[in-house]
């Protein structure tokens, strides 16, 4: 759908200039400039945490920028709430749909409209919705209840809602993340209709394929700053991948070659679904041996989280088998997995990995408290727990005022070190680390990585899930790429290059790669 227009002929409908937004400890947006032209589809591309959603939340008035200016149709505007944005014709479809499931499509569409009649004429509303859905190819029954609709249909209702309110600038936050491939294709059609009707669209994504298929121009963000803006026609996926992940290597870690032993983890043809009951793992087969680190590369949302949860007993395995140390632990309880010596550094360190309202010492003890010396006959030995915690705080250099300080008052890096201390101490066979250095500063990142290698050298298997290619390349021994719940290929970290990984992450198969060293491992062979 790339239109003939390559350079912008007219004035931008939207201009963001020098937008800076800081959160405690991070700069989410760093002097970002962005322009959007009439009848244009602009892709906002970047890794997780690159600042795409923050930028758009500034635009719809959910966040207030620390610096910068916004111009809509040439006029400087101040946007303080979603309502202000709506008045300017700006609307956003969030990743989590803003819909009331127990109400009909029509009711959802008119919810909160201010000049609505006290008793709305629902027949008229439905009629108008039908007109709009015909014009924009957004087929949906106005009288249907939201809970009866598929995810794709719900997304259409979200878009209809914006159009019904007269939005001319539409922002879609990762619109295909929740869609089936067919639905994603239909979305492409919808975007081109909107474009031909004169609407401007910004869509946030981290998938190169969508950028190429849907957009006219692409703006690439990295670490909060714009690194490039290109016309889509003049760019390639490889080009974009390089821009998105960057080139520079941050660390060189001294690492001895791996000395792999017997297999500690074997997955055979594992299938599982995500929280929305959509397929998340579709026939994953993997093996990890003692003394090696297997990295899992992939764009977020391609089954990584579900993989970690399936191995640790937190997610139901629909079919396939899971063996740890030659014991079949398919669908065991989380406790069984812990007892088998599996440790897990979860992606969400605040909601899952730690208990904010409890002391650092207790958080460190949360795996070892079941057995002596920390407890005997159901009675905790506070003395021993304290000693252990102090030892760990020192060994892992956790910066905390005291062992009894509640974890919620620590910084992200120190919370992560607390989890690391607990999990590494309890680890016997297998360590699963999910985005272990996400959001950490340089020093903390390095110490996390060293710990992983240390575990490997002590003969444990390590599964490292990361979005950071540098991390994967420096830390892992082998790298498997997950795409849409399938393993696309397993590469030796030594010979793997970023571009090959980038292509696999974008869905290319291993055979298509020039000079890639190996295909999928045969687990258990």
């Amino acid at each position: 759908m790339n239109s003939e227009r390559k350079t912008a002929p007219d004035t931008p409908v939207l201009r963001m200039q020098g937008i800076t937004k800081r959160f405690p400890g991070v700069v989410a947006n760093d002097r970002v400039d962005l322009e959007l032209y009439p009848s244009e589809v602009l892709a906002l591309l970047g890794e997780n945490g690159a600042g795409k959603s923050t930028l758009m939340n500034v635009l719809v008035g959910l966040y207030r920028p620390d610096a910068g200016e916004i111009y809509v149709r040439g006029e400087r505007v101040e946007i303080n709430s979603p309502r202000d944005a709506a008045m300017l014709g700006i609307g956003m479809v969030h990743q989590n749909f803003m819909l009331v499931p127990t109400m009909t499509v029509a009711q959802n569409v008119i919810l909160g409209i201010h000049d609505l009649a006290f008793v709305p004429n629902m027949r008229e509303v439905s009629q108008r919705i039908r007109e709009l859905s015909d014009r924009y190819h957004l087929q949906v029954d106005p009288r249907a209840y939201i809970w009866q609709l598929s995810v794709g249909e719900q997304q259409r209702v979200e878009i209809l809602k914006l159009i019904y309110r007269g939005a001319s600038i539409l922002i879609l936050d990762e619109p295909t993340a929740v869609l089936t491939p067919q639905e994603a294709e239909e979305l492409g059609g919808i975007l081109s209709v909107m474009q031909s009707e004169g609407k401007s669209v910004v869509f946030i994504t981290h998938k190169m394929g969508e950028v190429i298929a849907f957009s006219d121009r692409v703006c690439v963000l990295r670490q909060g700053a714009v690194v490039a803006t290109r016309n889509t026609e003049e760019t390639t996926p490889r080009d974009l991948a390089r821009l998105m992940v960057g080139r520079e290597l941050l660390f060189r870690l001294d690492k001895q070659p791996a000395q792999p032993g017997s297999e500690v983890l074997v997955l055979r043809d594992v299938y599982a679904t995500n929280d929305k009951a959509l397929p998340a793992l579709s026939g994953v087969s993997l093996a990890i041996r003692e003394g090696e680190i297997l990295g899992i590369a992939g764009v977020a949302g391609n089954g990584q989280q579900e993989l970690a949860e399936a191995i640790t007993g937190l997610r139901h395995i629909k079919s396939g088998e899971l063996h740890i140390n030659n014991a079949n632990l398919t669908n065991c309880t989380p406790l069984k997995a812990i007892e088998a010596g599996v440790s897990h550094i979860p992606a969400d360190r605040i909601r899952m990995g730690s208990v904010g309202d409890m002391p650092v010492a207790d958080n460190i003890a949360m795996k070892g408290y079941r057995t002596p010396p920390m407890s005997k006959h159901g009675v905790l030995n506070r003395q021993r727990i304290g000693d252990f915690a102090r030892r760990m705080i020192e060994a892992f250099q956790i910066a905390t005022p005291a062992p009894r300080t509640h974890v919620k008052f620590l910084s992200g890096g120190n919370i992560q070190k607390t989890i690391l201390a607990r999990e590494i101490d309890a680890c016997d066979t297998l360590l699963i680390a999910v985005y272990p250095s996400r959001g950490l500063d340089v020093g903390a990142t390095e110490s996390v990585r060293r710990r992983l290698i240390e575990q490997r050298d002590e003969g444990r298997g390590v599964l490292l899930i990361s979005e950071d290619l540098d991390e994967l390349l420096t830390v892992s021994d082998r790298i498997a790429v997950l795409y849409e719940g399938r393993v696309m290929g397993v590469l030796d970290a030594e010979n793997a290059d970023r571009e090959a990984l980038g292509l696999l992450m974008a869905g290319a198969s291993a055979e298509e790669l020039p000079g890639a060293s190996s295909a999928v491992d045969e687990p258990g062979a």
Partner: protein
Amino acid sequence: MKLVLHKRETVSKRAVVLVPIVSFAVSLFLGGILLILSGANPLVAYGAMFRGAFGSSVGWTEVLVKGIPLMLTGLGVALAFRLRFWNIGAEGQLTLGAVAASGVALFWSQRLPSWTILPLAILAGCVAGALWAGLPAVLKAVLKVDETLTTLMLNYVAILYYEHLYHVTWRAPGYNSGTERFPEFAWLPRIAGRAHMGIFFALILAVVLWWMFKHSRWGFELKIIGSNPTAARYLGISIARSIVLTILISGALSGLAGALEVLGIARRLQQGVAVGYGYTAIIIAWMAQLNPLGVIMVAMMMAGLLVGGDQIQMRMRLPASVGVVLQGMLLLPMLAGSLFTEYALEIKRPEKLPVAGLQQDVGKEATG
């Protein structure tokens, strides 16, 4: 101008201490207005209430009489609330505990050696309370049925059953209502006035619970589940099992309260068991911030307000309900104030944009 709440970096220690004290002062002040409007000098009235409750041995024993069931139900509720299980069924659990204890005392005396009756009656009360709480706990653990409403419903069922028993089925011949008096060996010994041995149960159990919360694996797991159930599951703790076990104990504590009440005070099943202790217990548990030792103290204070209210009725011809009004009023400023332990209030002027880099972003507009 805008009032903006923003989350504090640490829990304010000052607020933790100040909020209950200020709340008590506010409720005394508001109660004082009520007293002035009804033509009484609040200072004199409060003085009389205090002396009535704590100024004589009779007052003290009556405070204990009301305090014992409040302590035990308060402990039961605090235990459940630690798990974020909103058990508001203490009233029903207490009532059934009284019923079961009465059943044993009335009907097993002929068949079993007399020395076994009192302990068995107490035990029966615990079991009945536990089972009555266990039903909603199982529904919650297995089917995720909301416990607030099921525990509340079961209160009515228990009370109706109890009323039916003392009005009809178990009614002593010749009475309008109420059962026969229990045989003497089923009486719970008294220590002074009407105050009975139940106080020892309450004190010992409070200390045991306090110790368990601090030092046992069970207490440790309760804290984890209550603070972050997702983390609890990830750490391998079985949430369903913990809920059911803990709530059984919670119900047993309330059942015990009911058993002791009939065995120690009326010594027969009659009107006056379900008088709202189970609801007051919720306020007590909350004010004590779910700390078992705190429950004992707050329960004594609440009992003091009730007895003090009775006293000023007798001495100053003021309504005894002053005590209840103060009870209800105590928690209201406290509920309002507890926000300030986690949030700080700040006045913002609209002209000034927030200074970059400060924490002001993380906040909430309280009023426009």
